[in-house]
């Protein structure tokens, strides 16, 4: 990493931007504004944070991403459950835990490793830049196996359904859905986001529940995964007609047309801002293409998405938003069949993309300011579908799963929360022997910790997560969620 010696300090970067803007001022009637915004960029420099929410759609089999290593009862339970899809201990990349991990039933465990495809994630973990939060999932309130078996438990609606669990994972397991926690958080932090042209809610992966706001004022800006597109041949008569077409839509027009017009206008405004951001980012001297190419993810969707996010963060002075929330998505995790093969290639891609993203953030000086969270709607059953004869076997929808937190502010090298003991048909198993773990930490608890780091006061946390009072205080030691420094 940094082999080209192109690491640019944040200070140097700001200096460049300042020159760039003042240079612009000399030839541009709006120079004063440019200078002001340059100064504002300097002033705000002290207080910029970005949240990058990476969603793994389909239900990541995270018990094969992070697995017990070395002879132990935990490892035995892992092998018993996973059968023909267990990963051999030797192939796992060893993790050097800063602290022994908490395991369900007042146990603890030290030996863990990462999937063979996750070598770079293991390096980041061991470099204390990355942490795992174990067995998190959607919960209405804490519950037990007994309560589930005798049907007295209050459970998230439609447990094990993709669409519902995705929605709940990105908000809370309550009905009806009203907002995503990213969207609501942006509303609470509007003071930090001054842009009138581009939303602080930016998605490089289309619309999503995470960024839905409560008040209908803030909409998600969904840009292409490689940045903002342009309209072909947008000039002369075409431009005249199109602009007039947009401006002739008024509040008597069909409501769907009004919405279409709003999206179109947002696209036009954001196009300019995003292009400025990219120009500014590319003037930094960071070679984005090389970084993602080297990690083998230049063509991957998640690689392209994270590259665009890195550029938006680097070129942030063109937006004026100091608390942007990015949504990134990678699909294909619903491994009902051929799990070993498909998971291998998915994790290799994720590993490469996160590595390249980390490297460019370090180079542009933003790694300490950017919190990257990687989660999935649910984990998968510990036990495989079908029998051991079938080479193409997979796993089914389950519940708790592991999440990743990455960034300079992370208490890296640790497993937070509580790891399940992986014992079937007892303890945390919500099912009759399939290994569907009752989450030991609610997503709302994990999200509260991130929201607080991002600027939401502890007092306001219940506005984001109304059910938070049902759980142990995430900021107390007992919750074991101190994953942010």
């Amino acid at each position, binding site marked *: 990493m940094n082999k080209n010696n192109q690491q640019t300090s944040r200070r140097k970067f700001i200096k460049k931007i300042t020159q760039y803007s003042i240079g612009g001022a000399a030839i541009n009637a709006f120079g004063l504004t440019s200078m002001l915004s340059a100064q504002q960029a300097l002033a705000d420099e002290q207080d910029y944070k970005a949240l990058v929410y990476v969603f793994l759609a389909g239900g990541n089999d995270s018990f094969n991403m992070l697995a017990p290593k070395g002879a132990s009862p935990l490892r035995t339970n892992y092998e018993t459950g996973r059968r023909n899809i267990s990963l051999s201990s030797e192939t796992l990349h060893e993790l050097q835990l800063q602290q022994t991990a908490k395991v369900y039933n007042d146990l603890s465990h030290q030996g863990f490793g990462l999937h063979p495809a996750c070598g770079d994630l293991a390096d980041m973990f061991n470099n204390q830049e990355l942490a795992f939060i174990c067995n998190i999932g959607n919960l209405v309130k804490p519950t037990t196996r007994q309560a589930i078996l005798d049907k007295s438990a209050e459970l998230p609606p439609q447990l094990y359904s993709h669409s519902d669990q995705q929605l709940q994972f990105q908000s809370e397991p309550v009905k009806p859905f009203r907002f995503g926690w990213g969207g609501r958080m942006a509303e609470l932090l509007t003071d930090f986001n001054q842009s009138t042209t581009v939303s602080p809610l930016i998605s490089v992966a289309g619309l999503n529940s995470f960024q839905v706001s409560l008040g209908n004022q803030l909409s998600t800006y969904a840009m292409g995964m490689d940045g903002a597109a342009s309209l072909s041949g947008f000039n002369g008569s075409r431009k005249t007609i199109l602009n007039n077409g947009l401006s002739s839509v008024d509040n008597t027009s069909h409501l769907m047309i009004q919405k279409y017009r709003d999206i179109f206008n947002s696209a036009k405004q954001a196009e300019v801002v995003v292009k400025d951001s990219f120009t500014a980012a590319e003037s930094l001297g960071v070679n984005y293409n090389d970084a993602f190419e080297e990690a083998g993810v230049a063509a991957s969707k998640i690689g392209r998405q994270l590259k665009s996010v890195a550029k938006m963060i680097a070129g942030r002075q063109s937006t004026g938003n100091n608390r942007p929330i990015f949504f990134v998505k990678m699909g294909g995790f619903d491994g009902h069949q051929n799990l070993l093969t498909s998971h291998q290639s998915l994790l290799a891609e994720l590993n490469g993309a996160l590595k390249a993203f980390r490297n460019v953030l370090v180079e542009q000086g933003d790694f300490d300011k950017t919190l990257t969270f990687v989660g999935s709607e649910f984990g998968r059953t510990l036990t495989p*579908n079908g*029998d051991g004869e079938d080479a193409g076997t997979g796993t089914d*929808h389950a519940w708790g799963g592991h999440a990743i937190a990455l960034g300079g502010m992370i208490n890296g090298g640790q497993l937070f929360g509580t790891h399940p003991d992986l014992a079937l048909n007892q303890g945390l198993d919500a099912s009759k022997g*399939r290994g569907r773990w009752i989450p030991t930490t609610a997503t709302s608890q994990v999200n509260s910790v991130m929201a607080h780091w991002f600027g939401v006061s502890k007092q306001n946390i219940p506005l984001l997560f109304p059910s938070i009072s049902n759980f142990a205080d995430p900021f107390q030691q007992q919750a074991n969620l101190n994953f942010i420094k």
Partner: protein
Amino acid sequence: MLRKLKLITIVLPLLITACGGDSDKPPTEKEEVIIPNISIETLVDIAIENNTQVAKFQVTRDSGSEVLLIGYLLSGSEDETLGSASSNDYQLKYADGSDVGDSITIKANNNSRIIELVPIKDEFNEVAETLNLSLQTSSKYILADSKAQAKIIDAQDNAQNRKVFYGTFGQQGDALTSASGVLSFILSGDNSYGLLNYSFSNLTSEQTDQHIHMAPSGQSIKDIEIKGNLQNWLWELAPGGIYKTKQDMLDALFAGVFFVNIHTANYSHGEISAPLKYDETISPPEIQPLTATDVDRDIIRFLNQATFGATPKTYQTLRAQISTNGDNRLQIYNQWIDEQISIEPNSMLEFTEAVLEHFPEEASSSVRRDTFWNLAVHGKDQLRQRMASALSQILVISDESATIRKAHKGAALYWDMLASQAFGNYNKLLKDVSLTPIMGHWLSHLRNQKQDVEKGYFPDENYAREIMQLFSFGLVHRNQNGTIILGEDNLPMPTYDNETIKNLARIFTGLSFSYKLKDGIKQENYWFLTYDNVNNSQYRWVEPMKFFPDFHDFESKTLFTDHQSTIVLPENSEQTAETAMLEFEKAINAIVAHQSTAPFISRQLIQRLVTSNPSPEYIARVASKFNLQGDLTAVVKAILLDPEARNPNALKSSTFGKIKEPILQMTAILRLFEAASQVPLGTQNNGLNIDINEGFESQASLLRLGDINLGQRTLGAESVFNFYSPNYAPTGELSSHSLVSPELQLFTESQLYSIINQFYKLVYSGLVRGNSNKYSVNTKAQLTVQLQYNNLNTLWSNTSGNNKEKAEALFDFVDFYLLAGQFKANKNQKIKDIIVNEIDDLDESSRYKLLIYSINANPEFTIQK
């Protein structure tokens, strides 16, 4: 239309033993007794109080000649918000005037009996009241169709029977205003809906909102989405506020409880209000006949709902049969639908194979994907393929899966299955779809084996979950009108839990390929775990899966509970592929017959064809045709011929209709402007010599558009959740009016640009699949699909006057065919003037290109009303 009765004859071998003294025959070991099948059908489904029209049922038997007594039960509407007939509303009589007693009697030597539902005239204003007649089971007969339904209404809906409510606007509360206005509400003769009209002037400030409220509490009953004056706004009196039934609403209406108020910036609680008071002295207006223009527009709207885009030819064909005032239009549409149904379906598989012969080295998946454009643009079976397209967005599979992409024959056959059964029944379709190896692979019930707890393996639950959540009844119980049923705790009632899924998953165990390639030929497959790879023959992918009894779970299964009845499939001692199949069929029968399936599927089909936000009444009317089997012919007719779909005021509505799916926006342009490559399909010069069986337009040429980024590709959704959710409500005005717009979920900023750019490319350089020329004798230029401007050229030449007038005619032409004349109807002159001004002095080619680009980039052209 009467459906043919399906009669089942069961011959039961009975063992008669000597058990009484009344037999003088010697005891025999076996004797055959034929038990008749009994069915009931509705001959006339409406009884009318004010002219004593009777409704009629007919009970029929298929065998036997003795007197037969048949027990029956009477019940009202299952939807408690609707009216139910009670015993003081009617009498049940035979045709000879005698009363029907406790049971229905079929006389000796008669095969059937007609029962009349005679309405009793009363003075009440009543909503339509439903009566269900259900035959009781007995050992004397077997019930084929056991249930029939009819309704009693006060009066027919004609001008004479309508009632007028009247009111004047005055200040609301203490508002200081000189605003005034008048209001009328015309209630239909059958009390099922009314048309609200009002006009007012002199508000002190801008109008911000408008509602119907109840007095004196002021509670809001219904939102009115349209600002300004209102004309013929349809209000279906759906229960709202404190009123739980439609009859409550009707009573409140006659009691004079409702008023309309107008909210303004100065008076946020209302500046003026007007009551709805029944006034017997006002005679209802004549029902305005449709003008010739209304009829023209309705034909285009119909074609845009039922085909891949209206064209001059399809329009003229219908127009020639419909009278000027359109009074026979429903009949002609109905006939057109019947004709469409009778057209031999085009086959995606056959067409793909024929085209592949000309591109032998190309990836078959690319050829398969492109065939959709030819089917949609040139196929004559338009309604069928449009239905296939709609069904493919409910019963989703996708060639985003590499295996399905490679197994192009299986994917094409899947499409053909949707098309060939588009007018069949949903029950059969769902069975067939469930058994395709393509679906088996997509939702992983292929090679899914029974559980073995000891060994620690369990059947995959994917298909069990999605068949309930997405392909049939959905997550929560619904009324027939699609509204959610609340349980005792006032929460929606889930239709199933994970135990149900686990039980249902066990039904789908033991399914695997029935054929495969072996020793170079197609052979039956006997190995359950035959791998899901794709070879050239693709034999395993084109035959339905079969049950392997050794891998199927034959234990008893408890499925879902619907209206207090729980579906239990008992343990099967006879463990064969046949019994496994019977159990599978029973499960699918129960899934489709679930009472929430009809509204759940009907709503989505309405959304795909007509409007994103059908009223509950519209959903109920369609769902009532679905029946237990899912009669798709009846459903599609109900969708397209419904008063709500055919309401001419829709063009002026700011909420009715839907954003066009990008592929439909594309097909409409390709059809209207006769898109063509220089490679004809038929035997013309340079043609492919494909035997197109008269299924395609004679001028059809090969349309290989390639993987254009429209955000939507037939059989190419990212997941089983389709391209968008049927419940997607964009933030802002739409969601605050509780309106959904599924298609808008596709329109992100980047996708919107991309779609416009694809149209730019089509118009200015043409579209072609990259590299397809490398696999063909044809050049890229020959394969490129270009629009043709013959229609526009003729119009330009034939229009008299100057260039401006000619350009106006061009604009009106596209407005008419793409939007049913929406611009003209709404007197939206500004855009027309700008486009006309930009194109009138251009040379021929630039003129047409700019016109077509402009309409595709214009927001107003993205809607189908």
